[in-house]
C-alpha cells in the first residue's frame, strides 16, 4: 500500500508530499523525502521497553509501563524544582498535556529552542517579526538571503521546495528568477550555490548588519572600509541588491542566534528588514530545526502567554529568560529532577548543565536511545509521532498541518504517558494535601 501526501517528521520544512510504501505494517519505501527524513521514517533501533535504574552508572532493568510511570510521577510530585524539557519532536497534542503536567507539579517547562532559536524570541520581543508563509516567498522572492544557516545540510529540500530552485507565480524561472546571497563565517555547501557569498568574521554579524542598515539609510559614509572582515564595496553592492528587490527574504539560522550578539543580532536583522520595507517588500524567517519546535512555541504562547521557559512554581506562568531557561536553572543547581521528552538535553547542553543532571533523577520519554538515555534513571519508550501516530505539527513558518499515521505499533503515545503521569501526580498530591 502506498500512502500519499505524507508529512515528514524530521525538520522544520515539514515537507508534506512524501509517498510511503507500507507492507505488512512495515515501511518498505519512502519517496520524495531527503535522506535524513527518509531514514527517520524507515526507523532504526529503538528502545524496546521501559527501563529503570537507581544508579546512573548501573545497568537498566526492564520494568512495566505502570511501574515506570508511577515512579516518574512520584519523582515529579515530590520534586521542588522539576524541569520539563524537550517537546520539539512531538505533536501539539502532547505539548498541551506537558504544560498541564508542569502546572500540576509547579515545574518549569522549556523546549529545545532554549539552545537554538531562543534568542530569536527575544529579538521578536524587541522588534516584532515581519514574515510570511513559505509559499509567499516561493512565489515572489527575487532576492534570497541565507544568513548563518546551511539548508543544504540541515534542511535538504528547502532550496528545492521553497526558496531557490522551485518555480513560483512571479518567480517563474526558478533559480534564474532569484539572486541568492549567503552570509556565513565559512563557505558552506549552501554558499557554493549562491550568487554572492559574504564571509563574515566569526562574531561580527552585528557589525555587518549595522553597516548594511547605514548604507540602506543613505548613511554609507559612516561605514569604515571593512566591517566584520567584509570590504565596504561588497556591502554596498549587497545593500543595493536588497534595496532593489521587489521581494526580499532573509532566512537565518543558528549562525546568527548563537554567535556573539545573540538576540541583538536578531533585533538588528529585523530592524534592517523593517527599514527595507520602505523600498520593496521584505521578510525574515528563522530556519527552525525540529519538525515541530515551532508548534511548541505556539502552544506554549496560547496556553501560558509566553513562548518558552515558563516557570509554573507560583501557580501561574512566569517567564524570564536568563533566569527560567533550562541552562540557567541547571547551572544554578536549582533543578532537583528532570523530565526530558521529545528532545535531547544530553547531546546539546553544556557540560556544567550535564553535570547537574548527573546528580538528579532524570526521566526520559522518547522512542529512541540518545545521549540523554546515558544519564537517565527512568526511560519510557513511546510511539514515533508522524509515523506511528497522527496529530498536529507547525512548519517553520507557523503553518499547522496534520501528521499522518503510517503503521501501527503497541507502544503508548507521548500523550498517553503524560495523561497517566498527570493522573498519578494528582493522586499523590491529593493524598498528601
Amino acid at each position, binding site marked *: 500500500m502506498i500512502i500519499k501526501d505524507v508529512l515528514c517528521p524530521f525538520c522544520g520544512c515539514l515537507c*508534506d508530499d512524501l509517498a510511503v510504501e507500507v507492507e505488512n505494517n512495515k515501511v518498505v519505501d519512502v519517496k520524495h523525502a531527503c535522506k535524513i527524513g527518509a531514514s527517520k521514517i524507515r526507523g532504526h533501533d529503538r528502545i524496546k521497553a521501559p527501563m529503570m535504574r537507581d544508579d546512573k552508572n548501573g545497568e537498566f532493568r526492564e520494568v512495566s509501563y505502570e511501574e515506570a510511570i508511577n515512579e516518574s510521577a512520584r519523582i515529579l510530585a515530590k520534586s521542588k524544582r522539576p524541569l520539563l524539557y524537550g517537546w520539539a519532536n512531538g505533536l501539539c497534542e502532547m505539548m498541551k498535556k506537558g504544560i498541564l503536567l508542569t502546572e500540576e507539579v509547579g515545574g518549569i517547562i522549556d523546549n529545545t529552542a532554549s539552545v537554538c532559536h531562543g534568542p530569536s524570541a527575544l529579538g521578536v520581543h524587541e522588534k516584532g517579526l515581519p514574515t510570511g508563509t513559505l509559499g509567499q516567498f516561493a512565489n515572489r522572492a527575487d532576492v534570497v538571503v541565507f544568513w548563518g544557516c546551511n539548508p543544504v545540510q540541515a534542511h535538504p529540500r528547502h532550496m528545492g521546495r521553497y526558496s531557490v530552485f522551485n518555480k513560483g507565480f512571479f518567480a517563474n524561472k526558478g533559480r534564474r528568477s532569484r539572486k541568492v546571497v549567503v552570509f556565513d563565517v565559512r563557505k558552506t555547501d549552501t554558499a557554493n550555490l549562491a550568487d554572492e557569498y559574504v564571509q563574515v568574521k566569526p562574531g561580527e554579524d552585528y557589525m555587518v548588519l549595522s553597516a548594511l542598515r547605514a548604507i540602506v539609510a543613505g548613511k554609507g559614509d559612516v561605514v569604515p572600509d571593512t566591517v566584520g572582515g567584509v570590504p565596504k564595496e561588497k556591502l554596498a553592492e549587497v545593500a543595493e541588491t536588497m534595496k532593489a528587490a521587489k521581494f526580499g527574504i532573509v532566512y537565518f539560522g543558528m549562525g546568527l542566534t548563537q554567535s556573539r550578539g545573540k538576540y541583538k543580532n536578531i533585533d538588528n536583522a529585523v530592524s534592517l528588514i523593517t527599514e527595507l520595507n520602505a523600498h520593496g517588500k521584505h521578510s525574515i524567517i528563522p530556519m527552525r530545526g525540529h519538525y515541530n519546535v515551532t508548534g511548541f512555541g505556539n502552544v506554549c504562547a496560547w496556553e501560558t502567554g509566553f513562548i518558552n521557559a515558563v516557570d509554573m512554581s507560583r501557580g501561574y506562568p512566569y*517567564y524570564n529568560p536568563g533566569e527560567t531557561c533550562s541552562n540557567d536553572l541547571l547551572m544554578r543547581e536549582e533543578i532537583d529532577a528532570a523530565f526530558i521528552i521529545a528532545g535531547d538535553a544530553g547531546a546539546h547542553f553544556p557540560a556544567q548543565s550535564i553535570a547537574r543532571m548527573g546528580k538528579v533523577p532524570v526521566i526520559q520519554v522518547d522512542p529512541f536511545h540518545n545521549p540523554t538515555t546515558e544519564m537517565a534513571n527512568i526511560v519510557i519508550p513511546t510511539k514515533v509521532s508522524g509515523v506511528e501516530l497522527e496529530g498536529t505539527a507547525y512548519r517553520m513558518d507557523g503553518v499547522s498541518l496534520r501528521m499522518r499515521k503510517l503503521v501501527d505499533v503497541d507502544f503508548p503515545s507521548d500523550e498517553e504517558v503524560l495523561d497517566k503521569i498527570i493522573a498519578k501526580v494528582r493522586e499523590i498530591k491529593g493524598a498528601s494535601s
Partner: protein
Amino acid sequence: MSEMLIKNATVYDPINSVNGDLMDVAVRNGKIVDSVGNSAQIIDAGGRLVYPGGVDAHTHIAGSKVNIGRVMRPEDSRLGIKARTKLTRPYTGYTVPNVYAMGYRYAEMGYTTAFEAAIPILKARHTHEELEEIPIIDKGGLTLFGSNWMVMDAIRENDQDRLAAYVAWGLLASRGWGVKIVNPGGGEAWGFGKNVSGLDDTVPNFEVTPRQIIRNLAEVNEKMNLPHSIHLHCNNLGKPGNYETTLASFDICKDIKASRDRQALHVTHVQFNAWGGNHWGDMESKSDAIADYLNKNDFLTIDMGQLIFGSATTMTADGPVQYANARLLKSRWSNGDVELEDSSGVTPLEYHAQNYVNGIMWAIGLELALLTKDPWQVLMTTDHPNGGPYVNYPQVMTLLMSKKKREEAMSKIAEKTFERTSIAGIDRELDWYDIAIKTRAAHAKVLGIVENGKGHLGVGADADIAIYDIKPDQTDATTEYNRVEAAFRRSAYTIKGGVVVAKDGEITATPMGRTYWVRTKVDNGGYDRMMEDLKLKFRNYYSVNMANYMVQDEYVEHPVVVDTEYK
C-alpha cells in the same frame, strides 16, 4: 433532565420585544422552555436585570495574529495574571490574553458567544486549535476572501458560479461561518509592499478592483443564502479622509437584496473609517455623515470599534496599514503574509487621552452609536484588541448610557478633540433595552444565529443568560454609572447552556463551547471549473498539498453545522 427556574427576573429580550418585564425564565436541558417542574434548581433574581448571554460579532480571539501578539508582547502577558485553581487554568494577558483568560473573562461579564473576525484559510487549523481551548463560550469565525487569488481570478473571468463554489469550499476548508473582506485587493498588493488606494484602483497582476471584489462577494453571499452577510473592513482604514471611501463602499451594496431577514452588508469597526480631513493635522470626525447614511438606509449594519485609552495590540489582515502604524509610532511590527490568500500585521500601541487624534477616534466610536437612530444598526465592539480589549465593554456600555459619564471622560481628553467632533453636544442616553440590543440581540441578528437560539430568551433558545446585580427600576444609569459598570464587569450569574458558569464574577464551571460553521451546496458547473483552477493553484503555487490543506474534523470537536444551498 436538568431544570432551572430564574424567578423574579427583570428581563430585556429585544428579539422577543420583552422590555423590562418582571417574569420567570425556565430552563430545561440547556434550553429555554415555558415551564419547569417543582424540583427545578431555583435562582431568585430578586428583580435584578436579566439579559440573554452576550454575543460578540467581531473580536480577535484566536489564531496566528493573536498568538504573534502574545509572543511579541511578554509585557502584556504579565498583566491580568491569576493563578490556577482546582477549576481554572491560569489567566494571563490584557490585550492578548491566553486562551483560558479569553473564555473566562467573557463569561465573567455575562458573555457566552464570540466570533473570531479573521481566519486565513491556510492558517485555519491554528485558529481552531486555539478556539477549541477557549473554555465556556460558543464561537465561530469569519473567513478571509478579499485578496484571495481564487476569488480574484473568478471575478476577473466573470464567473460567479465558480466564485460561489470557491467561497463554499473555503468556508468548508476553514470551518468558517461567513465571508470576511479586509481592505479588498490590498492584501494582494501588499505582497509586493504596495496597497490599493480606492475602490476603483486595479489590484496589480489581477486586473480587478476592490469595488468588483465587494460587489461580487456580496451577490454570491446572498445567492448562497449564508446566515451572515458579507463582513467588510473598508479600504483606506486609518487614513484621514477615509470616510468618503467608506460611504462609497456602502453604496456598492445598496441594491443587494438580502436573502434572509438581516442586513445585506455589515461594515466593521467603522470608527477607524469615519475620518475627515486630509492629514493628521486637520483630521476630524465624519461620524455625522456615516450616521446620516445609516439613518437613511436600512440595508446595512456596522459596529463601533470603540477606542479605549491605554494599551492596545492592533492586529488585522490589513498588512499595509500596520506597517504604516509601526513606522509612524516607531513601534514593534510583525507581518504575516499568507500565500495566495491575504496579509496581516500586528503592532502594539498605546492610546493617549491627551493625543487629539486618539481623542477624535474615541469620540467617533461613541458618535456612531449615538447619532444613528436605530440601535439595531450599530453593534457595540472595541474590535478587540484593536480599539482596546473586550474587558472594557462595561465602560463603553455606561458611556453610551450616561452623558454625565461622557463629560467626566471628556474632561481628561485633549481639548482640540472637541473642535473636531460633535460628541460634547450629544445628549442621547441609551437605556437598558438599547444596551441589550447593542451587546447581544443585534449581534446575533447580524451574524444570523438567532435561529440557532442565540441572542434571545424565547422558548427553544439556548439557555445562555446573564443576571446582573442591578435593579433597573431602582437604578439611574445616567448618574449611577460607576455602580452599573461594576455590575456589568462581574455578572451575578452567567448561565451557559443551562449551567451556571460564573457567579459574582468568579468561574464556577468550565464546559466546552460549540463552534458554528456553514456548509453550502454548490452543484452546478461552477464547482468543476473551480476545482480545476484550485488543483492548478495547489500544484503550482501553494506550499502545501491540497490533501493536507483542509481543516480536519478532529479540530472542531463540538461543531454546529448549518447547511445552505447556492441558487
